[in-house]
């Protein structure tokens, strides 16, 4: 009896080990050495897959290869890093430029070699965003930044400063025309991305800069005296102050509240335009204003780019697609038509800006934009910064909140 059990368990265990060994084996998918597989695999999120399909097919036709686009609905960056590591990743991936640091430290992407002429055809900020450790790591195709939407029926002229904005909003609220002064998503967890322009205008910063002008991960400045002053300014705008910033306004309700005309101002990006139009709001877009006498309110600049996977099975083909195909003006314009975000190619911007006034306004609002730091250390910022933001918006002491954020960030960076 006992022997039978032992036998059964051994058999099961053996079978399992066999299966596990075969699962972990990277070899079978490698094509024979002397023959290319003539196949290009691209991973993108659902928003972009449809837009890409026609170009991918055309590229395939021109080069006599098949191009497969795979939609990754959730967590593309993580899926790509893991898939790449296991050898089941794609040849090309499309994503935001602030992934670069993490993808590089995981040896997941290769530099893309662009000619001087190609480089100069991009908007300078877009090219700077995809440059990391002195190398261009992706071909940028779209840019995005946040700006100030205002309901022109309630506020005909754009406020020049935050103070003007708050005054206009407060007057409207007192008059009972709106229920909120401003819709800027804070939420229960804070939102560093959306508050950053105002924080920067008040003198706050996240990192110091290195000699080359890049963010310096060794010098976290969230707890610096200047940042404390900026947090104090946020506190004045918060729930115990003028009430312009509220933790009850978050990602889930900021755009809809503006679209239902309960809010005269919304700070958001191009993705909000559709809902705002659907809501029938007469709107205009302008740069996020700064504090009177303060610094410029610089929004974060995000860039979408194509990357070549280090473990691509058809890397030369992938390099060709990224460096020489998507950097083409017609492709950039067609990508814009499918998903209207400001293109990164100057020529493509010129081609589309006549038909899309919002795009020009977003570009103008992002003129002084600060490319979101692509260094991996950035991931340590979001959580603690958001918590400090929530604390000051609720009226807690700015110095304590900033110091706590600084401590938490340094603890996370210490690894």
């Amino acid at each position, binding site marked *: 009896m006992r022997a039978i059990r032992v036998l059964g368990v051994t058999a099961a265990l053996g079978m399992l080990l066999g299966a596990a060994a075969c699962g972990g084996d990277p070899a079978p998918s490698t094509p024979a050495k002397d*023959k290319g597989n003539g196949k290009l695999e691209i991973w993108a999120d659902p928003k972009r897959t449809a837009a890409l399909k026609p170009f991918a097919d055309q590229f395939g036709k021109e080069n006599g290869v098949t191009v497969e686009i795979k939609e990754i609905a959730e967590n593309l960056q993580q899926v790509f890093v893991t898939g790449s590591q296991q050898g089941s990743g794609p040849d090309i991936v499309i994503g935001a430029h602030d992934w670069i640091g993490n993808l590089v430290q995981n040896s997941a992407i290769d530099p893309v070699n662009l000619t001087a002429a190609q480089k100069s055809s991009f908007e300078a900020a877009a090219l700077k965003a995809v440059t990391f450790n002195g190398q261009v790591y992706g071909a940028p195709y779209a840019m995005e930044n946040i700006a100030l939407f205002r309901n022109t029926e309630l506020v005909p002229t754009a406020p020049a400063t935050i103070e003007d904005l708050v005054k206009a909003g407060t007057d409207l609220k007192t008059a009972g025309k709106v229920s909120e002064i401003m819709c800027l998503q804070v939420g229960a967890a804070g939102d560093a991305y959306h508050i950053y322009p105002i924080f920067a205008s008040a003198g706050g910063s996240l990192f110091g800069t290195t000699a080359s002008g890049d963010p310096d991960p060794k010098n976290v400045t969230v707890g610096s005296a200047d940042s404390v002053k900026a947090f104090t300014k946020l506190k004045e705008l918060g729930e115990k102050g003028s009430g312009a910033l509220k933790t009850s306004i978050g990602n889930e309700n900021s755009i809809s509240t503006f679209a239902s005309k309960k809010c005269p101002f919304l700070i958001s990006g191009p993705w909000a335009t559709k809902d705002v139009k659907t809501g029938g709001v007469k709107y205009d877009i302008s740069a996020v204003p700064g504090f009177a006498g303060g610094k410029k309110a610089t929004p974060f600049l995000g860039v979408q780019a194509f990357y070549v996977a280090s473990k691509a099975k058809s890397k030369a083909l992938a390099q060709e697609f990224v460096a020489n195909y998507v950097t083409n003006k017609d492709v950039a314009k067609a990508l814009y038509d499918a998903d209207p975000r400001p293109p990164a190619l100057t020529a493509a911007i010129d081609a589309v800006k006549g038909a899309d006034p919002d795009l020009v306004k977003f570009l103008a609002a992002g003129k002084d934009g600060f490319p979101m730091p692509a260094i991996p250390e950035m991931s340590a910022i979001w959580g603690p910064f958001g918590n400090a933001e929530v604390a000051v918006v609720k009226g807690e002491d700015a110095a304590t909140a900033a110091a706590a954020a600084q401590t938490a960030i340094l603890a996370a960076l210490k690894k």
Partner: protein
Amino acid sequence: MSFLLSRVATLSITAAILLYAVPPLLKAEAWVALAILCAAAAGICYLYLSKRHVPAKYLVPGTVFLIVFQLVPLLYTFSIAFTNYGDGHRGSKEEAVAAIERESLKEIPGSPDYALTIAAKGGDLVFLLVDRETKAVQAGTADGLSNVEGAEVSLTGKILSAPGYEILPAGDRDAEVQALAVPTARGAIKSSGLSRAIEFEKTRAYAADCDCVRGEGKEWKASSETGYFVDAQGNNLLQGWQVNVGWSNFARALTDPNVNGHFFNVLIWNFVFSIASVFVTFVLGLSCALALHSPRMKGTKIYRALLVLPYAMPAFALMLVWRDMFNKDFGLINRVLGLDHDWMGTPASARLALILVNLWLGYPYMFLVATGALQAIPRELTEASGIDGASAWQSFRRVTLPLLLVALTPLLISSFAFNFNNFNLIRFVTNGGPYAVDNNLVGKTDLLITYTYRLAFEGSGGLLGFAAALSTFIFIIVAVTSAIAFRRTRAQEEVYS
């Protein structure tokens, strides 16, 4: 008949696994794995073809699933707890070196811009290069550059034909195209895509003699402790590799004040949360089940369908809906009750809100299992106790409940274990918040699992090794608690059966 069928099913699954796994194993020349696989398959075939060993026939499938879904993940988690596996340390040292060298390839300023055509000569791969300015045509191989005469060049610089060379279609021999570096005086010409080639110099290179990366006048020494190349000032190159770090992940969990300083507060709330969740869902679920169990109750089918409704809807969506209902200014709860309370902003109400949400999500399950268990208890027992003069409460307390608990305690324990690690609820409803102003590391509603997740994944990218070590601790806590509870249940069963 059914026995025959199940035998056929088991044997065909085994055969299928064998068919699936053998070719890749052969290809990878993994002889040990292959031998184990074949031996296991042979064992299973023997077991199910012979008429003996009947108990083992029933035990093996369950054992396989236990191993696959419980034991292997557990052992795997435990094994990566001893490494620094995580972002920056996912691959091998060779991969890190290759990535560092690739990153250090710099285009030589002023070098010609070559149009590239990929060709073959006598089976060897050749780069046919056209200098876009001078239009000179050259052939590049691993030996260097040589001139090509009589080539037909298109307007874009592509070579249409060249005597003695075979032009290859795009995508052919990709790995070789990648690998080919044509040596030049200053560096090497490498392909950049399929239509361009660039002359590069490698500014950093790995040197085996010192086990370091050299370049740009600096030297980064390989550290097998951290899995990084580190220079004299202690700055590391970004690309690292996976190394064994022994017990240091466990040691960090126990000694790092950022981790253990909050551990006990979190643990206490974790127990309160999971016990309270089980208790309230059980009480409400059981009450509903008892009400519907009463023979005097009408329309029980409709009530049952309505009660199961929350269980049938996706929990994720409901969690987000509940979160929005607790919103201070826009939420339904404050509006209906006429309050102005910041539910998620104060620790006590955030905790209460979580338990309420969990009650809503969890009681249908308790209702279902309690209904089932109640139907298994003969009504004669309560009738008999009624004849003996017991009140309804007494017969519930003394007869029904103990019998119910015998059946349901294992489920209550598993519900406890589930809620102990109820990551989704916390993540979606409060995300650990609210946070004290002077403490950004741990929120007032954090469970160990969400706290662990934040430490391991949100602060500094994915620290999977460290997360695995923390998970091991959580596993031990849950396992010990459950083991104690099961032991008590067994004692209870002995009393009542």
